[in-house]
């Protein structure tokens, strides 16, 4: 680090070379016998209870305990990370930018929040950090060539499977925004001066048809063989099946009370037909106010750390959410042109 520099020392003072370590290293000075790190636990009774339940349920790995420096909070977070990795974490990160939070309250500013929660009421929430992006147009064209009702079927199943767990911003949201804008300006003197995005015109006709039932879709799938459309339908059926493996938990009265002043959840995926279309325009406009008030989490899983069945159920549902997002990522991977919108490869 200090090669070629001659140390200069004043009389009776140690030179810098005597005091500093040599080589490309940084040594932390320490007193012999005095540990460099002190760790103690206080105010983490909820984490201790949850860690105990997770170990008993075999959801937490004992080998993670020393890696978490025997800290119950770090151990629980490691267990959640392990759970995400085992349920398609890598695939999820390709197309979504989400984070999970474990906490004892949904409104961090509430004066009812406990200082040292005992773990009887915990929440595992999922929120987007950034919005994923998908351009549907080329995929709908491929599917329409294969069967005229496939585009509507594809989007209906894709959007429903994801919307159960996270929010997609699509042409329905854009249409709602246009309706709202029209209501706002109705009757104003300079009504003609406003530019309203033409969402209706950007929606392809093929998506407005009646979707196939699952049985009909399976019959069509047989005829598609190993084509691009066939592979898309396989991935879609996989996604639809996985999404239905769990039911979204109902909001309790307490949760409703905590979330009463929140905005709608932030979208985890923006689905447009063509890059820069009216749907994207509406999203850009609406996005400017989405964070004005704290948004509601995309999904909230409440559980009681003292009750093993409650913890097991929350983790099971969380696993289904992760698997659904991973399956959606795999569908998007198959969409033509989607290689441009990878978030993390």
């Amino acid at each position, binding site marked *: 680090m200090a090669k070629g520099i001659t140390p200069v020392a004043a009389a009776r003072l140690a030179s810098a070379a005597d005091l500093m370590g040599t080589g490309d290293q940084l040594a932390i000075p320490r007193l012999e016998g005095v540990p460099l790190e*002190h760790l103690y*636990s*206080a105010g983490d*009774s909820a984490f201790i209870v949850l860690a105990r339940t997770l*170990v*008993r349920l075999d959801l*937490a790995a*004992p080998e993670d*305990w020393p890696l978490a420096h025997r800290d*119950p909070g770090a151990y629980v977070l490691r267990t959640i990370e392990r759970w995400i990795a085992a349920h398609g974490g890598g695939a999820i990160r390709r197309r979504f930018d989400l984070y999970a939070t474990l906490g004892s309250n949904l409104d961090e500013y509430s004066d009812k929040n406990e200082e040292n929660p005992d773990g009887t009421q915990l929440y595992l929430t999922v929120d987007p950090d950034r919005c994923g992006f998908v351009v549907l147009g080329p995929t709908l064209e491929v599917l329409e060539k294969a069967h005229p009702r496939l585009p509507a079927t594809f989007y209906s199943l894709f959007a429903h499977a994801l919307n159960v767990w996270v929010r997609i911003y699509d042409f329905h949201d854009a249409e709602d925004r246009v309706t709202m804008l029209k209501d706002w300006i109705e009757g104003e003197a300079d009504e003609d001066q406003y530019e309203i995005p033409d969402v209706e015109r950007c929606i392809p006709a093929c998506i407005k048809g009646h979707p196939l039932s699952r049985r009909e879709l399976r019959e069509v799938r047989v005829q598609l063989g190993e084509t691009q459309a066939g592979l898309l339908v396989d991935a879609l059926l996989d996604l639809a099946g996985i999404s239905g493996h769990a039911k979204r938990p109902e909001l309790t009265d307490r949760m409703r009370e905590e979330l009463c002043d929140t905005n709608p959840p932030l979208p985890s995926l923006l689905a447009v037909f063509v890059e820069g279309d009216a749907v994207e325009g509406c999203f850009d406009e609406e996005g400017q106010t989405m964070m004005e008030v704290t948004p509601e989490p995309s999904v909230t899983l409440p559980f009681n750390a003292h009750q093993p069945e409650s913890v097991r159920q929350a983790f099971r549902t969380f696993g289904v959410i992760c698997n659904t997002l991973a399956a959606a990522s795999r569908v998007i991977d198959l969409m033509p042109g989607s290689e441009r919108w990878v978030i993390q490869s």
Partner: protein
Amino acid sequence: MSQTRRKEAAKQAVLGELELLAGDRHPRNQTLIARFARCTDYQNATKLLTEALGATGRWQKGSPLSPPPGWLPPLT
């Protein structure tokens, strides 16, 4: 020992440590610094002692006591 038994033993060891933490009996919570960090009486007493030592330094005629063998001289 079979893998299953080894895993069960590791699991029981983690549960044992968590039990100690739950009862505030874990050795790492019994160190001097851990007790100091949690005990406000301990912290207040230390503050009083520090202030007293500071006041001692201002006594012109006083001479500081030597620290017990093995102790570092008090710093204020």
